[in-house]
């Protein structure tokens, strides 16, 4: 599948030298010094380089070697990790982030033909539906938010709200693929995989890209959400389960006597060393031995990372772990913080299938979704900030599209809203984002993004940029193509929301 890089003097992993306008390239040492906690610093990098991730050209079957060693970004990064709070289902912008008083005036009418162009089910479509919620200004920035988000309202000065996102498709599957991969098709790597490919991990005992999906079920598109597609599989997201052992087969088999695993590992070690001794210069064998040792360490590291009993009661309460409504999402938000703290590069949270997808019963669904997430999300921002992690962690919140300002009427008779890909809201926080910013606007009804529009590719470019990567240069050679997250689409970094 992979077409190997052709010309020898290319830098690591399709990463190119920085463009002239970017800040000076960091050496790996500097990068580590900057990002450096003692635990996962320079010393570790050398261990990783030597033992774990051989780049010996003799790697098995002549294939290219791909690994998770930390890599130097193109330029000085603002963030070293991302927490992506993916709100799959399509949160309604006009009820949460984007007040449109005119909807009340024109309620029940359809004032222009364009409004109906994205409708999935033409037969169910009604007129404009005003938001039942009141909006008010918050924080020093005076950002307007809906009454459904009282906790986020306390953090508005940390977030940059983008009201002018637009997508490419009005259906979940393609729209989610679009948001994850930059294309509406099922066959491209997700943004997390690109980040893992570009930067590797800073904790040799944990994966670079961790997914915390909802114990209540997989999101639409299932595990394809965190696929590496044609990027090497090491960059695929690793599912950490929020309940039980976090990783599949992490613990030795329960029926084994306790000391057996160690005794077996010792035998394996001896046999493999002997095998290795007879095959000099085959450093991939070293990598393989190291991978078994890492597996043993990961058992401790992953369990520890997700062990919330180590948090204080106060912290647990802050995330809402003591309340049924917020406990599930709160656990995962808290886990996300613990993972980022330990050097995981990209943490992605999913939410039980489609709770934002309010085709009917708008009020009930929105109250449920906000009730579940608002407090934990705000707690995550507060917690990251008080621990000094927010500056280096980019937090991203958003769905695959928003919703139409029109009503959608089901047979049940309770109105909701249909999917709205032409204009919706997302927000970013931390990691070099200018808090308190409100950027872009939709039209007078909240239907289409019209001012300072931000495409999904712009959005991706901005995430990469905060991590110190240029979206044009983070590339992978395949079938002779210079594949990129933004593909061949035009994109720009939304610098207006950045510090």
């Amino acid at each position, binding site marked *: 599948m992979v077409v190997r890089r052709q010309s020898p003097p290319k830098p690591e992993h399709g990463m190119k030298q920085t463009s002239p306008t970017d800040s000076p390239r960091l050496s790996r040492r500097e990068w580590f010094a900057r990002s450096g906690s003692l635990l996962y610093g320079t010393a570790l990098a050398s261990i990783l380089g030597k033992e774990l991730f051989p780049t010996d050209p003799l790697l098995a079957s002549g294939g290219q070697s791909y690994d998770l060693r930390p890599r130097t970004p193109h330029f000085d990064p603002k963030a070293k990790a991302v927490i992506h709070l993916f709100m799959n289902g399509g949160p309604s912008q006009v009820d949460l982030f984007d007040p449109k008083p005119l909807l009340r005036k024109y309620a029940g009418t359809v004032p222009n033909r364009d409004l109906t162009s994205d409708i999935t089910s033409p037969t169910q479509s009604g007129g404009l539906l005003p938001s039942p919620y009141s909006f008010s200004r918050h924080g020093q920035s005076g950002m307007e938010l809906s009454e459904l988000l009282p906790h986020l309202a306390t953090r508005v000065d940390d977030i940059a709200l983008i009201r002018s996102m637009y997508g490419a498709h009005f259906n979940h599957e393609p729209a989610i693929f679009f948001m994850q991969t930059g294309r509406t098709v099922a066959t491209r790597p997700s943004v997390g995989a690109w980040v893992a490919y570009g930067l590797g991990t800073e904790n040799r005992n944990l994966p670079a890209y961790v997914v915390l999906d909802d114990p209540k079920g997989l999101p639409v598109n299932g595990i394809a959400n965190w696929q590496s597609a044609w990027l090497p599989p090491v960059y695929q997201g690793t599912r950490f389960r929020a309940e039980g052992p976090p990783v599949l087969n992490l613990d030795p088999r329960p029926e*084994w006597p306790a000391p057996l695993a160690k005794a077996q590992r010792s*035998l394996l070690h001896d046999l493999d060393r002997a095998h290795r001794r007879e095959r000099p210069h085959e450093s991939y064998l070293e990598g393989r031995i190291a991978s078994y040792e890492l597996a043993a360490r990961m058992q401790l590291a992953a369990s520890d990372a997700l062990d919330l009993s180590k948090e204080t009661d106060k912290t647990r309460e802050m995330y809402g772990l003591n309340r049924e409504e917020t406990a599930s999402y709160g656990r995962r938000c808290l886990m996300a913080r613990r993972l980022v703290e330990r050097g995981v590069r990209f943490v992605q949270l999913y939410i039980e299938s489609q709770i934002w997808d309010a085709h009917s019963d708008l009020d009930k669904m929105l109250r449920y979704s906000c009730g579940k997430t608002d407090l934990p999300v705000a707690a995550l921002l507060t917690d990251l900030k008080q621990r000094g992690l927010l500056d280096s962690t980019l937090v991203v919140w958003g769905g695959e599209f928003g919703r139409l300002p029109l009503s959608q009427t089901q047979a049940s008779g309770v109105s909701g809203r249909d999917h709205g890909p032409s204009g919706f809201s997302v927000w970013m926080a931390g990691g070099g984002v200018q808090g308190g910013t409100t950027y872009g606007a939709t039209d007078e009804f909240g239907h289409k993004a019209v001012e300072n529009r931000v495409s999904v590719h712009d959005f991706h470019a901005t995430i990469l940029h905060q991590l110190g990567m240029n979206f044009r240069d983070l590339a992978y050679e395949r079938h002779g193509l210079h594949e990129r997250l933004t593909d061949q689409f035009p994109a720009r970094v939304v610098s207006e929301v950045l510090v």
Partner: protein
Amino acid sequence: MLIRVHSWFAFPSILLTGLALSSAASGAERSDLPTFKADVLPILAENCLMCHGQEPRQGELDLQSAAALLQGGQSGPAIVAGSPDRSLIMEKLVSGQMPPGEARLSPEDIDRIRRWIERGAPREYGRTADGDVSPHSGLPAVSEKDVLPIFQVRCVACHGKRRQEAGLDLRTRASRLKGGRSGPAVLPGDPDQSPIIQKIESGEMPPVEMQLANSVRPPTAAELQLLRRWIAGGAPSDPPISATAEGNGGPTVTEEDRKFWSFQPPVRPPVPEVLSSRLVRTPVDAFLLARLEARGLSFSPPASRLRLLRRAYLDLVGMPPSAAEVEAYLQDRRPDAYERMIESLLSSSHYGERWGRYWLDLAGYSDSEGFGAHDRFRPYAWRYRDYVIRSFNRDKPYSQFLMEQIAGDELADYRKEQVTPELIDRLAATGFLRTTPDPTDAPERGFIAERMNIIADEIEVLTSAVMGLTVKCARCHDHKYDPIPQKDYYRLSAIFQTSYDPYEWLPPKKRRIPIGLERENEEVAAHNRPLKAEIRSLEKGLLKEAVPFLDKLLEERLANLPEALRQELRALAHTPQDYQGGELSRKFLVVRELPEDESSQVRRYLAGKFKKTLQIGLADLNRRFPEFGPKTESLRKQLDEVKGKLRTEPYVRALMDTGGRPSTTFLLKRGNHLSPGDAVTPGVPAVLTTGLTPYRVDPLKHAQESSGRRLALARWLTQPGHPLTSRVLVNQVWLRHFGRGLVPSPSNFGRSGEPPTHPRLLDWLATEFVNRGWSIKALHRIMMTSTAYRQTSRIGPEALELDPENILLSRMRRGRMDAEALYDSILKVTGRLDPTPFGPADALETKPNKEVVAKGSRAGFRRSIYTQQRRYDPVSLLEAYDLPRMTPNCVERENSTVATQALHMMNGTTVWEHSRYMAGRIIDRVGYDPRRQIGQAYLQALSREPTEWELERSRAALEQFAGHWKSRLRDDRAPTPVHWAAQWRALSSLCHTLLNSAEFSFVD
């Protein structure tokens, strides 16, 4: 409600209504329309016209007038009226691609242009609504080819080849003029009176309630204008396109382009003379040695007999030899024992399972659709898998293999032939181009953009796997590196237009040929018969429960309607009596079918109008009556259970020609189906002509329903002198044997790919392959009996210095088993392999720890190729070892070494359970003597005896393991005899360790 929603259709100038309102609403001062002259031209004049004016006219783009923007340049129209999102100029401005260099337009200016486009890009006249000026003046004449795409995209789903609603066919000019039951659709010269314009403008067409079901959207404002202009200009027709006329414009492929090595037919080179001629066993050796000797190198010494045996087994059948096979080989002292062993492996039925799997990678085979939440299963996909395995086992000539896969349905008339296994095989072969994820069974995912993606994926499969070309870029623009103009891409696409018609699309569930062998049909019918009876009786029971609720709900719905209608409608609703079972609960009440005569005209109208009111199904009752669900829960559960047991009627998942007059294929500017360019005819890349009979479509005598386009492609591809076909395949076989292709980029033989390391060897093999009747087994023999293949993989000091990357093959390459080889090998060495071939894929199950494993049977577990190849949640062990995601196919496997692999191997269910089984069988065979146990375990797992050191180390480990197990068994108060049970478990742990060893999974 409906009436209110669509009230805006009634206004003649809807755009203006919306506009007036929205500008008032935004509080903008200007209440009039933005115009080109006042709002846009000044911005363009300042920033753009220096390059896109009268002179120069970069990219043939003139930005001096609104008409010229609509007209556009080389990359298509600069604007799409009413749709800034789809307007190229917006993309360029917003992204900063234009103007070039540092200059950027201010956000306000960009916004002004956006608003102008959004408002329909009105021209110089300001308020067009009151203008007497013809809105079309000054614009170029519209020809039929400009409007044909609109009919194809918006209309033919209902008024085309397969369906002619109201007797109307909108595919050709003549049929549009002729019209349908209510007269002509188009009145040349009179757009206002042409029914087609009236119906589109009033919103009657396409009908709101039909749009989703047919995945159709109404024409855009711009398209409507184009239609108007075409009709106003007299609805002219175009001369038919011809392949020669197509050549005009666009970049052409030059003779220079054609000289690139891979576009020239392979020429058989002489076998070179070498110094160490005694090392030459097959010509392969001579070619390799010539290069090695030039560097002062030679081959490495031969590998030991046992290593070679294991290597050959894993290469050809994907599993190591059994203990008995090892012993038999060691005892065979004949000089040609090795060659005999290779022959026996080539004739093993396991050979096709190994090499068929490689082909399935290239094809992108999957047992599921891979889209949406559920990853829907493809029940009969396995027929293609079996076809591939059988073809490899029979050493079917590669030319025939390709011919069947590309055009099996056109080789003979399957509609008339008797159903035989061969016929089914030939149809199943076309599954090759039916592999990519296809979500279009759901109408909301079946719009043209999705359909185009599927076609593009299949073209990618074909070109990357068979032609070694990357043509994907040419979907949107001319290829930047290879001489593949965009036009060539769409010519290729036109070959598939008759089987994958994007305009009259057949969703996957309709791409089935419902034939099976008589035996299969009977089997399924016999299996389903009692189930269907059970379903009928359960549904009757359910209906009985439902009747009172049905009546109540129907009356509630009717209560909203005028009294006069109610009785009539009541009579129209009825419960079908002649149902087959299975469909009743979906619709308890449906609208009665009415005869097509005068007397029922009114009732038919009512039936159509109130269909929704009268139809009531399970879902409706559940919604309305909360008590209905619980009351019928057990019945419904039973019903679902029984339905789940039904088997699908046998069919073949084929690619077939849809017959009739093919729709027109257009070059799509920037790959966008709403920006059609010139029409194209079917064809192949223009750069591939040297030594080839050109691509030519001949009508098929034997299968007249088929266009013959694909058969022509298959014939063109399988010409003996084709520059790519034989080289690409030979390279794939080489890659699997030697770990690296002679062309290191197996899917890219083009200019951006990597050049061959041994070009002459590649050509020699390619010509030899064709000379030997396209026999793949002949290739194995040539490669595997060579001295090169038999070398050790140990690196000597000279080789390390002079050939560090082993490009010259100074030693054999060592590699890790791929996912399937590992899985199958574990099954074989532990004695758990069920060798039953073919048939429906084995189901998977998820263990409580979430590990996904195959469901075994008493006979054990079948090879991985026979387990379900799901896109989501595949077998965990396979996934950990780089099982490819088919995106859309896989030309070369990844080879990672990561900790999750260790976790699966050490802690997973599968390997441990198999190890216990292996230990049990070893004890059955050799008893409790540890030395014999260890010897047997090594022989089975690693195809060799242990060394003295290994024996001692393993013995110590066995004792240690047994000690641990003993304490565990005692602690557990286990009823088993502690000593013997601990011995068995200790041996299980030893076997488990051997399966985990590096030596097991890395092939020397």
